[in-house]
């Protein structure tokens, strides 16, 4: 069944894979530094777990490569509902960690269903948009089906009190909008609705600590020792890196653990502190290249579903990266979103690698139709 076409190998996208491997390697090295203070000699348990996640991710990628991605169009809805069920189950099964219920715990394995949901959503939306007749302008109300597909998981994640992931999921879903050819007046109506929703959310939907985080972003000096502390410490870490950085394992903010959650959400601060402008600008360029490359895959795919799917997959990697980097640089409120390929976190790594695998899949099959 797994017949390897020679053209598949000829068309294999080594650039995308190469970019991903570089990012993941840097992420592991960075994680070793971030956990160095606790671990002392040897590898920290976080590094071991991350390496395990990378191995699992590689297996996932390989499977994605061998199977024609078009099978996903048929499996889209079952996969979507499965991930929705996983997310829903956290409401009943998951323990409350840091104020939100977003983890499913199976013995030593902790799964974040919201990460799986990203993929499920992307696939389901790709299917939904692919089914729409292309070419003509659409009214907003014609988008009720993808809208519903998006609203269900976002609503459920909001119920888990995980604001950051809810926003992230919303943005990933919205990634399709620029490609959906919508009339201008619909955009206006949409914009109004979004603003109304944001106002309502601010007043009724947010916990006070979440409002606090946003206020802290607007004015980090509001309480330098409370939640604005993270933003300030991160900015200090990044800024103190200077041009050349303080050197690997030499970042004082990192090694003395002034950075909060430095191996997960603030992994990029560690990099910026130790490698300076040189290292962090290089990393940003790698991400940019990866994402542009992903969009190029969407552009070059001769097949409709593949093209739409690639757009969604790029969105699923773009938004967390943007939110995370903006937060680290003090440009966005502190939202617990991991940096794909970089932050410590098995679920994120696994899903990001599978997303990359699917992109590779679309890419190498671009000439087959």
């Amino acid at each position: 069944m797994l017949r390897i076409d020679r053209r598949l190998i000829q068309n294999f996208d080594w650039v995308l894979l190469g970019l991903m491997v570089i990012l993941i390697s840097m992420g592991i090295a960075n994680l070793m530094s971030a956990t160095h203070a606790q671990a002392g000699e040897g590898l920290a348990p976080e590094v071991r777990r991350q390496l395990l996640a990378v191995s699992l991710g590689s297996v996932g990628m390989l499977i994605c490569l061998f199977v024609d991605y078009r099978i996903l169009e048929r499996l889209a809805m079952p996969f979507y509902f499965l991930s929705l069920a996983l997310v829903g189950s956290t409401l009943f099964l998951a323990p409350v960690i840091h104020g939100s219920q977003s983890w499913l715990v199976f013995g030593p394995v902790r799964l974040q269903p919201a990460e799986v949901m990203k993929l499920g959503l992307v696939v389901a939306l790709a299917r939904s948009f692919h089914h729409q007749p292309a070419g003509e302008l659409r009214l907003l109300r014609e988008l009720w089906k993808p809208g519903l597909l998006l609203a269900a998981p976002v609503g459920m994640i909001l119920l888990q009190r995980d604001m950051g992931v809810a926003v992230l999921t919303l943005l990933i879903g919205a990634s399709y909008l620029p490609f959906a050819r919508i009339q201008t007046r619909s955009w206006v109506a949409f914009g109004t609705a979004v603003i109304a929703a944001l106002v309502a959310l601010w007043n009724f939907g947010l916990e006070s600590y979440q409002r606090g985080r946003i206020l802290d972003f607007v004015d980090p000096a509001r309480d330098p020792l409370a939640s604005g502390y993270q933003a300030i410490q991160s900015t200090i870490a990044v800024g103190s890196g200077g041009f050349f950085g303080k050197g690997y394992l030499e970042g004082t903010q990192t090694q003395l653990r002034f950075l909060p959650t430095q191996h997960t959400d603030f992994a990029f601060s560690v990099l910026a502190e130790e490698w300076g402008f040189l290292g962090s600008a290089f990393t940003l360029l790698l991400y940019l290249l990866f994402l542009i490359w992903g969009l190029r895959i969407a552009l070059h795919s001769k097949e409709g579903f593949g093209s739409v799917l690639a757009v969604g997959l790029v969105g699923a990697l773009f938004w967390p990266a943007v939110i995370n980097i903006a937060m680290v640089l003090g440009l966005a409120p502190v939202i617990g979103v991991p940096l794909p390929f970089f932050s410590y976190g098995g679920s994120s790594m696994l899903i990001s690698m599978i997303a990359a695998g699917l992109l590779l899949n679309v890419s190498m099959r671009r000439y087959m139709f």
Partner: protein
Amino acid sequence: MPFVMIGVALTFGIFLMRLFQLQIIRGDEYQIRSERNSVRTVRLEAARGEILDRERRLVASTRPAFGVEVIPNELHAPQRTYDALGELLGREVLDLQGVVGSPGGRRRFQPIALATDLSYEERARVESHRYALPGVFTTIRPRRYYEAGESAAHLLGFIGEIGAEQLGTRRFADYRAGEIVGKSGLEYVLESHLRGRAGGRNTIVDVAGREMEVLDEVRAVRGGTAVLTLDRELQAVAEQALATSTEGETRTGAVVAMDVKTGDLLALVSLPAFDPNSFAGGIDSKTWQALRDDPLEPLLNRAITGQYPPGSTYKAVVAAAALEEGLITPEEKIYCPGSFRLGRRTYRCWKRAGHGWVDLQRSLVESCDVYYYQAGLRLGVDRIAFFARAFSLGRLTGIPIPNEQPGLVPTTAWKERRFGEPWHKGETVSTSIGQGYNLMTPIQLAVIYAAIANGGALVEPRVVRRLETKDGALVREYPPVFRGTVPVRPENLQLVRDAMEGVVSAPNGTGSRARVPGVRVAGKTGTAQVVRLKDDDAEEVEIRREHRDHAWFVAYAPVEAPEIVVAVLVEHGGHGGATAGPVAQAVLAHYFASKVSDETVPVLERSAAVETVSVGGGDASH
């Protein structure tokens, strides 16, 4: 699609610009902030310099005090930590919680002291559990220790946190809030010498405040040493003697023992005293309030601040003045019928029956009031005042301890100024026996009698002999200071001295209780009236304590070559000879006993011979 690519590229362009801004434009600024983040500067307090007595025995030293602090922000499980600490320190859990409270904001990151003076075992217990107690730290700070507790408390003074009002002043320009300074006594006077120099240590700390690495350290330098003129043992003897001079009552009063030739203070006692050790670690407000509100005023240094009418101790000054002015001769006899009449008033002699014909010698030995009424009237108040001032009354003796009071020497001009009334002759009468407006401090009495004893030289009381560095190198020496001589010819002083030996040694002398076997002691008793009693017949015991007279006694010895003068004041002690005399006797006895043992000359046979003589004599006072 190209628009989306441009959008993505623009987003990352913004990130690059932000990186440029943070890392390159403002990189230096953040570099400094990150260093400040991780480098903690710890102040290392300097140990206060040692204070030694004249024999270089420790009087005040510094010892390490172990404390426990918590940083509220780092208490992971506050309740468990309090429970554990409560058990380790044997303290109430609620107590500990109360001390810490629930501070907010920046204060959560600042250490709060839970205990400042742990025993070695307690500290070891906490230290061995430290890793189970995150947020709990042990500290070692130097702490002042006064070797003999309350002894010489007023002379040494006490220390405490610098006051807010002091912080801005020039004297304390380089002090910071919370620093320990000398608040009174020598601790205050010698502050700059004893203080030492605080050090500092820069350590790299992690976010939990744990010290990871020492960057650099400047060791604290202990303050300099001060060598006093004080004799620690004699001080203790004097305190003991004063405290036990009457049983059942809290003895209040003062003792000054001084070298008559150099002005060296050998003992300076004021009772009741306080324990300066209770101030060393920061006094709690309850103890402080109690000390302040105590009606017996334990914080008052009675030896230099307490002003009392000199009573009959003044008679030596009046006698010297009258002799010098040629108004009396040693041979002249004045008749004492037991009272003296001036105008419509009658002034009594303390001895109702009268002394009969009294010459100078007897007038001092038996302290005849009528003799001095006459002598005083011949002199007039202003001439008395001239001599009193010449003997250093009414002005500061110059003892380098704060809050010395000058006493008071009344004159006609003074009364005019003070009350707008002319001086009455009757006031001269009471002035000439040291009552009325006269006021004197115990230290002044010692200076006056030192001058009489040493032939007329006025010494300035000396407390500090020398200042040394912590390693013993000389910083400054304080030679004896003389403030002139009294305007009385030596032969007249000799007459006064001769009489005063009789006060102690004559069978009818008022100071017989001050006899020391083997030593020729001279002295003078005195009684300072507190209130003028309407009914002189009142029985002593019925008079309320606070209305009872103060008892004075001043003595010097040995008569043939005076070395030491001892001035004693027993507040509300009644007659001077009876209550104050034995205190002086105890001090003199100890002084000569230890002197003898120092010189290792056996004198037992000698003292045994004289011992039998010291019985009898007049116990009456004045």
